[in-house]
Every structure is written in structure tokens, then in C-alpha cells.
């Protein structure tokens, strides 16, 4: 008997590794008159259960002599085949890739839009829907209209160089993570046409580069945080079709936002009047 076993560490590869080693063994080990019985399901299962932070691998071709069916030992004439450079990435991943991969895990993706998001790569710059700058930092995430559902993750706050977060027209639920306020370079936050709930985090007022803030057509509640009025770069704000309450800010960049960008918030009471009562009466 002759049995194949691989010790793959990159989950995606295991099957191919097994098959590869099978073909190798076929072509290179012809002095064996034993028959091939099994490309063990073993290997595949193993890799599935394996921790994703193990990132290298090699393949062994093992001969099994004797009766220990299904078990890869006794005498093995093992052979490393191909190195990281050919088969498996020697990447350690990076924090931005990890953050985006956390997003992938948190999202349901029926159209396989995120299929290329392989956490084993050195950085996420070659993933589809991701754009990097020359220093391999992520600057854009473009996933509008992608039939995604699930939640956003706080890890997104780690994308320090992110300028455009385009997640509009999906079915994303849950709250806007307050950690998005760490995205110091963010120019555009487009979450419109989703199912976002909860409040608009007032910490978004820290986004000093923000130009576009479009949260319309969600189910957001609570007030429009006054902290947003301090973002002098803000040009477009659209929070229409939500469930916001309180009054509409009129100072700072809000001076130029047309009122129809606030419409269809039944509990929103109209523009705040300077000097009068606090804007958030009757609004939690």
C-alpha cells in the first residue's frame, strides 16, 4: 500500500497539494509496484481545522508498508517537494490584511465578491476591490452594490491610510463601529442604502479629512452628532431616510447642505435655531 499524506498549512491548497504530490509520486516513483489507494481526505480535513496563522507547507509522499490502514506511518520514504516560493506563500500577512479579513469573515458574501481576499498574502493590495498606495497601504475599499450582508467590524479602524470606504447599496446590518473615527485619512464614508442601525458615532467628528458622509437610506436613530460640524472639509452630508431625531445642525459645513439631505427622518425636527433650547430635546 502506498498512501499520500500532506501537511498543508494553507487551507486553500491542501487538495491541490495532495493531488500534486500524487502526480509527482506517480511520475517519479515508478519502481514501486504497489498501488495507490488513497489521497487521504485526512489532509483536507486537517487543513480545514488548522489555524489560519500557519502559513507554510510542504508535501510528503509516504509509502505505507503493512497493515496500518489509513494511517500514515511505518516506513516512509518521504520527500519534500516544493518550497514556499513555488507552492505556498511565505507571508506573515499584515495588520491591514488581517483587518480586512476580519471584515470578510463578518460578512455574508453570496456572490463571492470577496473570494480573492486571501489572508496569506503579504498584503491585501492584490485583492479585488482593494486599492493601495505606493507604500502598499490600503487607500480604498470599493464594495458598493455587492449583495453583502452581515456586520462591519471595529478592525476597520486599523486602515490608517484609507480614503474611500464605499459599502453603499448592500444589506449590511448592525452599528457603525466607533473605531471608524481612527481613519484619519478618510475622505468618503459611503454606507448609504444598507440596514445600519444604532446611532451615528459622535467620534466621527475626528475625521478631519472627510468630504463625503452618506448614510442615507438606513435605519439609524439618535441625533446628528454636533461633532460633525467641526469637520471643515465636509461637503456632502446625506442622512435622509433614517430614523434620526433632534434638530439639523446649521453651523460649519452644514450651512451649505441642502435640507432634502435630511428628509424622511420622521423625528427630525428641522434646522436648529441658534440660541434656543438644546438640539437634543426629545431625542436620545
Amino acid at each position, binding site marked *: 500500500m502506498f498512501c499520500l499524506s500532506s501537511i498543508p498549512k494553507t487551507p486553500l491548497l491542501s487538495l491541490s497539494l495532495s493531488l500534486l504530490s500524487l502526480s509527482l509520486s506517480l511520475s517519479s516513483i515508478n519502481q514501486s509496484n504497489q498501488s495507490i489507494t488513497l489521497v487521504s481526505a485526512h489532509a483536507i480535513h486537517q487543513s480545514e481545522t488548522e489555524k489560519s496563522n500557519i502559513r507554510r507547507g510542504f508535501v510528503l509522499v509516504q509509502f505505507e508498508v503493512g497493515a496500518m490502514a489509513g494511517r500514515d506511518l511505518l516506513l516512509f520514504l518521504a520527500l519534500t517537494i516544493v518550497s514556499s*516560493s513555488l507552492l505556498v506563500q511565505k507571508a506573515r500577512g499584515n495588520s491591514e490584511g488581517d483587518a480586512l479579513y476580519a471584515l470578510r469573515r463578518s460578512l455574508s458574501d453570496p456572490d463571492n465578491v470577496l473570494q480573492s481576499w486571501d489572508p496569506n498574502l503579504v498584503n491585501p493590495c492584490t485583492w479585488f476591490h482593494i486599492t493601495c498606495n505606493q507604500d502598499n497601504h490600503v487607500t480604498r475599499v470599493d464594495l458598493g452594490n455587492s449583495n453583502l450582508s452581515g456586520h462591519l467590524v471595529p478592525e476597520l479602524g486599523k486602515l490608517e491610510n484609507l480614503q474611500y470606504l464605499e459599502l453603499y447599496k448592500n444589506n449590511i446590518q448592525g452599528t457603525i463601529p466607533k473605531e471608524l473615527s481612527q481613519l484619519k485619512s478618510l475622505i468618503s464614508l459611503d454606507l448609504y442604502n444598507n440596514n445600519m442601525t444604532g446611532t451615528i458615532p459622535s467620534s466621527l467628528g475626528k475625521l478631519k479629512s472627510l468630504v463625503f458622509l452618506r448614510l442615507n437610506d438606513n435605519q439609524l436613530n439618535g441625533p446628528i452628532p454636533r461633532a460633525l460640524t467641526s469637520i471643515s472639509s465636509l461637503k*456632502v452630508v446625506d442622512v435622509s*431616510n433614517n430614523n434620526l431625531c433632534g434638530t439639523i445642525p446649521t453651523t460649519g459645513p452644514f450651512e451649505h447642505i441642502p435640507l432634502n439631505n435630511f428628509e424622511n427622518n420622521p423625528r427630525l425636527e428641522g434646522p436648529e435655531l441658534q440660541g434656543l433650547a438644546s438640539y437634543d430635546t426629545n431625542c436620545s
Partner: protein
Amino acid sequence: MKSSGQFSTLAFFMLVHYCLMIMGNTTLAKTKPGNTNNNDRSSLLTLKSHITSDPYNSLKYNWTAKTSVCSWIGVSCGQSNRVTKLDLSDMGLSGTIPPEIGNLSFLVNLKMMNNLFHGPIPLSLFDGMPLLEIVWLTNNSLSGSLPTDMCGTRPYGRNSVGSRLREFDVSYNKFSGEIPTSLERCSMVEVLSLYKNGFVGNLPTGIGNMTRLQRLDLGFNNFTGTIPEEIGHLNKLKELWMENNKLTGPLPSNIFNISSLEYIDISYNNLSESLSIEMCSENLSTVRLSGNTIRGEIPTTIGRCSQLQNLWLFSNTLSGPLPTTIGNLTMLQTLYLGDNSLRGIIPEEIRHLNNLLVLDMSNNRLTGALPRDIGNATLLWGLALRDNALTGNIPSDMFQGDIRTIDLSNNNLSGSIPSNIGNATDLAFLLLHDNQLEGSITHLCNLRVLQYLQISHNNLEGSIPHCLGNSSMSLKLLQLKQNNFRGLFPSTFSNGSILEYLDFNGNNLEGTLPKSLLNCELLTVFDVGNNRIRDVFPYWMETLPELRVLVLRSNRFHGDFLVSSKSYSKVPFLSLQVFDISNNEFAGALPVRYLENFIAMIDLGYNSTTPKLDLFTYYEQSMTFVLKGVELPLVRILTAFTTIDLSGNRFSGNIPESIGKLTSLKYLNLSRNSLAGSIPPSLGNMSELESLDMSSNKLVGGIPWQLSRLTFLSKFNLSFNNLAGQIPQSSIGQFPTFDNSSYMGNSGLCGFPLTKKCKGDDEQTLVPVLPQGDDESDFLDGFTWQAVALGYGCGLVFGTIIGYFIFRYGKPKWFVGLFVSVQYKMNRSTKRNVVRRRA
């Protein structure tokens, strides 16, 4: 006569049986002697009735009331005519195991391997069958936890003699839960295998009481906690398997006191701390501790493991130098120390390891020269020392005998490839890339069975020997990129070649591409970028059915794409997904026939529905492409990776409307050509497009609003053309996310994000025009007021003239068309507002 004979036989057995019962186990005395066989019969028939599927009808016609139980398939009886063995292995049976199986009170041997039984193990298995010695339930779908009362429910009761269970194998099932503490009562057990289940929890210390254990197999479960020291009491243990669990803590050193121990495998756990000083026992032949976080040095005492054949310690955090005593392990066959932090040189003593088959110390911090006399290991199959800092030359004596794999990549090796490399007649994998090797490679011609030649990123020179074409009978991968090879492209690719991957990128090759490449029918990747090839486009390659990547970038390819009609194949480049002919001297019209027919970029399903588990999909290639303006190495080319790069040529004429058929295309680069005409609105159909670069051409007309449909577009460059009109002002989609760098150098364009307003813009546009201030410098495109004024002036004059003609001659058709399209736009925005109000 006959009946009396039968009667006497029956009577005899009844007598024997009765005696046995009296002598044996009083618990059985309750059963009436005449019913014993019926008991077995009825419990087996109950078992049969619980079998829902019997695909080979193994039992259907055989296990019937008409025949004797003892003649049934899989049933063996003892002297008492009672069932002692039941073997239902490999029958493909589905169903459950009913508790009635426990009525087989004489059963010694139960084997039901390789079936589809599901559900739990009935408690009666231990309760009702005191004689049971062997239970093999391997490879079913049994689930639930093991009975809490294994091996006798009453330790001082009727089964007080204890269980006779010797072998208990439930591997490859779906059991869960913890190991019951009662297991320790199974004191006769020699083989315990729970391999490949979903058991959880700590390992019970009581395991140490199962002193007859020879094989303990707990691999591939979810056990946690530390390994109990009590395992060191199992002084008959030969095999200890605990791989792929979540065990933590150290490996108890007393395990190595077990003199019978031969195999130990605790790889892929979370073991920590360092290896114990004493890690040898006299019969130990295999130690596998890979994939843990074991730290510290490899103890020098390892040299005492005189019987050690396999030492696997890869993927840990071992540090320090390799002990020289490793040379004492003369029985050693495989030595895997890769993926650690080992330092220092590879000790010379390694030459004593004459039985070595595999030596893998990849990805450490080893320095110094390669071991000199590695050739003493005449059986050596595989040598992997990649990703270290080894220096010096490649010793010539390693090329001999049985060696099949040599991987020395990513070191600092210098000198040339030894001339006797041809002695390694079995060499199939030669990986020497990322070193500083020099000299020629003509002597590689003797390697007749070479499959993978990866010698990229060295300083190798000379010509590429023609033999590599000849030997493409065995070569699958030929990676020579980033060297100094010069001369002509080898032209002798022979019929029946199995070459899949050819990468000569970054050399100094000249001449033309040989048509003998057509013999490589499996060719998948062809990259000859960055050479000096002077040729017309190799249109003949369009018949290669597997070709997915064609890179001719940065050469001197020239001519146009008007090939003679006889060469037309119906579907050119059937599988092509990467077409990079940038930075050449191609001229004339764009290759429309290709752009219209790249099937793999038109229908994404085409390639992905025929998944090939081949090298291409899973191999790490590290090809470099310019993606979204950044040069990026692509380690793996997914089937969905589609790019067309025609930039930096002399293409002229229009962009064909039919380019919009490429609905699976991700990246399109037409920049730096002389393309004229307008942007086809059909580009709006390329719904996967992420990058569209048409900069530095002579395009005219407006930007079609259809482009605002491209929701994945993230790099958009129309700069330096002659475009005019309003930039689509959709407030949704990707357009608002492009800044002025996408449009600069088109004096006729207006609207956001440019500061130049369009004529007729009012303040109610969905995207407000940016007020001008110092802090908005990001949005200023550098247009001067002069230019703006000029535009206004021209517009005024133009408008006046148009107005005059309209009044004079009525409505010209084109003018109405313009008006209608504007109205359409207005309708869209009104509709949107209506929808909003309704919501």
C-alpha cells in the same frame, strides 16, 4: 434419524453451554439455555431492522429466520453455538446500533468498520457483553459521547473481574464530548483509538492506569489542557498519537522513560516550553513535534537517540545552533527542522547520516557553507535548505544517486551550478532561485527527468540551451526570469511537450518567438516581458488552448493586428485572462478581433466552472503587474484575475464599442497610445472593471454617464486627452470618489471635481460646487481663470451662433438629440426624489 441426530447435537451443545455458564459467569445463568440462540437471533434481527440501507444486499436475503444464525454472513459462533464474532465491515450499511446488540452476551469480537452507522454507541455494549475483547467501529458516522460507564458499570458488582476489552477503535467517526473517566477501568486495553473525532476536554489522568496500552491514538480531536504526566506510567506503550489537538504546556519528560516507545506524534498542538534534555528512549524511532511553539535549543543529548529514524520539529520556535551530536543519529531517515529560528552553520557531522532520505532545514537563519559531504547520504531524495543565509558554492557531490528534489532557493549562494549536475539522473525539482549564482546553464541538458526548473533572480548568463526545449518532454515549469541570459529564444520545443509555465522575463533575449512553442499544448503561462525580442505579434499562439497568461511587455514587438484571414481561429486565445503587450511598438487599430473574443474575460464562468487543480491555480508565481497604477507582485493568479494592458504602444483609431463585451475584465489599460474618437458608452457594461486607464490619448467628446454604473471602479484615469463637457455628476456610485487627477489635461471638461463650472450649472446640483478657499487646494486642478474665461467666451460665441441657426433653420436633429438626452437626465433625478419621498 435425522431429527434425532439434530436433537442429540443440540443437546450436546446445550450441555456444553450449560457447563460453561456454570463454570463461567453466573450472570448468564438467568438466561434459559434453550433460548440462547434465539436471543442472539433476535438481537441480530433487531440490528438488521435498524439498518436502513444495505446497498449490496449483504444481509437482506442472508440474515433470515430460516437459516441458522451461525451461518449468517459476518457471524461466527463459538463452541456454545453462541455468537462470538460479528464482522459487518465494508458492507456500506447505514443505520443505528440498537441497544439489543448487548444481548449478544458471548460476543468477543465486534467489527463494523467502514460503514455508515450513525447515532450513539449503546451503553449495553459495555454492560451486556462481558466477554467483549475487540471493538472496531472505525470509519462510520457514529456520534454522541462515549458511555460514561465504560468497561463495567459496577466496579465491585457482577462484572467485578473487569472488562476484557483489549482493542477499542472508534476512529473516523463523529463522536464528541469528553473522555469518560471510567475509561481507566478498561485496564486490559492495549489499543485505544479515538482518532479523527470531535472529542473535547482534558485528557483524564486515569489514562495512566491503562497500563497495558500499546497504542494510544487521540489525534485530530479538540483535546485541550496539558498532557498528563501519568502517561509516563504506560510502560508498554509503543505508539503515542496526539497530533492536531489543542494541547498546551510542556511534553512531560517521563514519556521518554517508556522503554517500549517507538512513535510519538504530538504535532500541531500548542505545546510550549523547551525540549527536555532527555528525549530518547531505547526504541524510539519517530518523534514528530512539528507545528507547536516549542522554544529553546535542540538538546545535544539528542545524539543518544540511536534508533531515531524520523525527527520532525519543523514549525516551532527553536533557536540556537544545531548540535553536532546530530551526526550520531546514523539511523536517521528524515530530518525536518524547517520554519524555526536555528542559527549557525550546518554541522559537518551531518555527513555521517548515511541513511538520510530527506533533509529539510528551510526557513531558519543558518549561515556558512552547504555541508560538504552530503553526498555520503546516497539515498537522499530531498534536500531543502531554502530561506536561509547560506553562502559559498554549491558542492558538487550532492548531485548523485537518488536525489529528486534540491531546493536551495533564497540564500546567498554564489559560484556556478556544478558541472556534474547531470549525475543526478533522477532530479525532478531544481530550485535555486534568489541567489547570486553565475555562469551558464548548458550542463542542465543532462537532466532528463527534470520537471521544475526555477532559477530566477540570479546572475546566470549565456544562452538558454536549446535542450530545454527538447527536454520539455518532462519539463513543466521553466522559470529563468531576472537573469542575464542573452541570445536567441530556444526554438526546439518538441512535439508532446508538457511545458506549462515559461517565464523568461527580465533577460536580454533577442530574435523572434519560435513557432515550435505550438508543440507545448499545455502552455498556460508565457512571460517574455522585459527582453529585446523583435517580432510581430505571435498571432499563431491564439490556438494554444490552455494559455491564460501572455506577457510580451517591454520588448520590441511591432506591426499591426491585421493578420491574414487564414490564420483566424474561431475563438482565439480561448483561456486567456492576462493580455499584457504594453510598452512595445505595436501600431494601427486596436486588436479588435481579440478584444471581442477573449472568452475568459467575457464570461467569468468559463474558466471557473472548469476548475483545474493544476499548478497554475495554486502555484505561487510571483509575476509582476501594474495594477491601479501600482506595480504589484502577484503570487497567485486567480481565474478571476483578468487584465488587458495595451499601454505604451502606437495604437490609433477608435476604441471599439464591442470592448464593452468584456464583462469580466477587471483591469483595462489603454493609456499612452494615439487613440482617437470618443469613449464608447458600452464601457458601462464592464461591471467588474476596477481600473480604467485611457490617459494620454487623443480622445474627444464627453464622458458617457454609463460609466457611473461601474460600482467597482476605483482607479479612473482620463487625463491628458481632448475630452469635453460635463463630468457625470451622479451623486451616487463611484464618480464622486475620483479627484481631479482623473481628469486633468482635458481643457474642455467641467464640473465637479474640477473647479471649472459647466455652463448652465445651477446651485441645485446634487453635488454642490466646492467653494474656493485655501483649505480646498486638494480640489483645485490648477486651471487658471484665463482658461475658464476662455471657455466661457467660446461658449458664448458658440451659443450665439447656434441660436442664430436655430431661429433661422428650425431645429437641427442633433440639437434635439442633445436636448432629449439632457431631459432624460433630469427625469432620472426627479424619479429619485420621488422614490425618496415615498420611502
